[in-house]
């Protein structure tokens, strides 16, 4: 990554490569079929993604990854969001980035699925709660573990590092709840379970996951907005294309502005993640991007349901799939309200005078 042109080429290549698994033109049949199943995603697609190098995108090259940046990862997850891909790449890549090189081989190949369990309270961004490790055993509780039903191993954040816990080890209890998008989130209860402690700091990987989720939401809102514009150009009522009604036109313009703001903030924050060395500046940018992405995704998906009219309220129509994805991901890795509060605590007041 040296010049801006290299970067832009690298981002283009990532987007192109995404089209193999997540083409923007595809219907959403595969996504529909996987809803409300276990584990809620397709392990063979997972392996394909691993073969494309996506899981190790952020892993240094000398550890077997691609050593790319947050901007590339966000470009990829934006494409995944546009197709509502359910495979837990954001979570998986966070774990891969935190694992020591000697643990990575079967993970990067897709044989073993390691997912992070970082959260212990609702509406929290705290990584260090909910688990205590000692003498190779762990006790604790983590919640909202994304797509937990598909994990082989959990990477549990604890003070000072992470604990690797086998899903089937004694003392490991996993209770999966179905989410609105047809996936699942796990409550992981650990009672003196065998665990391998790995010292480290998950902060950067975690911030990257927040960004990647923002980009996923961006892709999703952009796609459903595009679908809706197509609908307005074809659907007729009162003898006219409904897209010719000014009230719907102006509403569409407002949604377009939200999508564009989300795109600008996500791109800028991803660049800040790659370029800035100031932790507070990075976190402020990340929080602002996630807040905008979550809010805009909510406004845009709701607006698209309304613009579709009655058909938008059927499960058979696609906009609802995007609305339900928003319901899961807008609060994931911190809701808009949580990130607005974090931004307020981090950001200097404007320097205008």
């Amino acid at each position: 990554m040296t010049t801006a042109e290299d970067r832009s080429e690298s981002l283009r290549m990532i987007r192109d490569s995404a089209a193999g698994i997540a083409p923007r033109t595809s219907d959403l049949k595969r996504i529909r079929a996987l809803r409300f199943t276990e584990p809620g995603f397709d392990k063979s697609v997972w392996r394909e993604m691993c073969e494309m190098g996506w899981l190790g995108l952020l892993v240094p090259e000398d550890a077997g990854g691609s050593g790319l940046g947050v901007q590339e990862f966000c470009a990829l997850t934006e494409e995944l969001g546009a197709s509502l891909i359910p495979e837990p790449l954001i979570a998986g890549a966070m774990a891969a980035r935190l694992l020591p090189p000697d643990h990575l081989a079967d993970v990067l190949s897709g044989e073993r699925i390691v997912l992070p369990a970082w959260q212990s309270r609702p509406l929290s961004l705290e990584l260090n709660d909910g688990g205590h490790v000692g003498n190779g055993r762990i006790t604790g509780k983590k919640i909202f573990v994304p797509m937990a039903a598909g994990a082989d191993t959990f990477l549990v954040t604890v003070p000072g590092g992470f604990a690797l816990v086998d899903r089937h080890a004694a003392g490991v209890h996993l209770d999966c709840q179905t989410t609105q998008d047809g996936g699942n989130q796990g409550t992981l209860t650990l009672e003196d379970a065998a665990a391998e402690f790995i010292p480290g700091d998950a902060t950067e990987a975690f911030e990257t996951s927040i960004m990647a989720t923002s980009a996923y939401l961006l892709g999703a809102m952009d796609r459903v907005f595009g679908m809706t514009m197509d609908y307005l150009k074809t659907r007729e009522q009162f003898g006219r294309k409904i897209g010719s009604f000014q009230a719907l036109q102006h509403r569409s313009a407002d949604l377009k502005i939200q999508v564009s703001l989300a795109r600008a903030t996500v791109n800028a924050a991803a660049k800040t993640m790659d370029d800035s060395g100031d932790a507070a500046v990075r976190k402020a940018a990340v929080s602002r991007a996630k807040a905008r992405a979550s809010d805009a995704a909510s406004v845009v998906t709701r607006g698209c349901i309304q613009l579709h009219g009655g058909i938008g309220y059927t499960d058979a129509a696609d906009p609802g799939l995007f609305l339900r994805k928003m319901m899961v991901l807008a609060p994931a890795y911190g809701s808009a309200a949580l990130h607005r509060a974090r931004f307020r605590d981090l950001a200097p007041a404007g320097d205008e005078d």
Partner: protein
Amino acid sequence: MQQDLDALSDDAFRQVVRDWVEANYPPEIRNPLKRLHWDECKSWYFLLAEKGWLCPGWPTEHGGMGLSPGKQLIMLDEFERHGCARTIDQGVLMVGPLLIAHGTEEQKAFFLPKVLTGEHVWCQGYSEPNAGSDLASLRTVAERDGDDYVINGQKIWTSMAMDANWIYVLARTDRKAKKQEGIGFFLVPMDTPGITVRPLLTLDLNEEFAETFFDDVRVPATALVGLPNKGWSMAKALLGFERIFVGSPKQSAYALARLRDLAARMGVTDETDFQAAANRHQQDVDDLTDLYETYVEQVRQGEVPGPDVSMLKVYQTELYQRITETMLEIAGEHGGMLEPMEGNRALNPAGLFLQSRPSTIYSGTNEIQRNILSKNVLELPG
């Protein structure tokens, strides 16, 4: 006995209704999270029928209560207050009044008693796939063939079509007539050959609605109510009451109560942000209630509310949605879950958020309502 009720003062009448409802309403279906199917709500239907309270608006000679509009609203208000489920009430609200006004003696004698006993369960065949809010452009056709009519077409958003054994259908009897003319009103048994019902799964994963297909459905000419070209105007005249109901603040008030439950569960009741949001919603609900009361007063005076009643629908449904949006914000990750929190249906942010979505679409989208306001109330140019 009905005569006695109408003679009571409003307050006394309200107390009579409240006492009876509190003593008799089946507790297991109080404040249901979704529209109930016939199997779930028929106990309440039969209870009302037995008490003689099923049809407050029908004249006593047809088995109704003959209540004044004001008293009817009090009754509904008490039912809503207690959280009574809506029954499958199309027979009571639509078919009965239409037949009493326009039906033949034979039609009245045959159909009205069967609504009162619950033998006939009715659904409404109005909306069509290409005539969402544009009802007058419907395409279903009823062609005269000797002593019969043959109906072809497709209806959508048929509420409770799977539960109903009869459907009333608007169908075009004269293709040459202008938009809203040449439409007839037909009464059709659901088991007539050629009728197919396909359930529509809605976003909250319920099957309240269905698509109903008519494929050479043959009915006798006696299935027609009134004149063959007056179906739409007859049907429209019955919509007055509904236009008030969809603006009732009760729906928003219910959602706000659930928001407070959720806040308590999430431990944010005392937080300034929550209090400001909830207080704002409370004032919006109360202000809407003041506005709603002005329309209730009109009904009480025997007046028919004008097109300005659309204000209620617009404001109520958007307020309802705002409240459920606050709910999702407070719920955090729980707002993405499929099931209510801890199996407690009072803590169901995702469910209420989804249920509030179509409210701005059904009964004439809010865009249509704003068109009505600007054209028929503000008299802005076409």
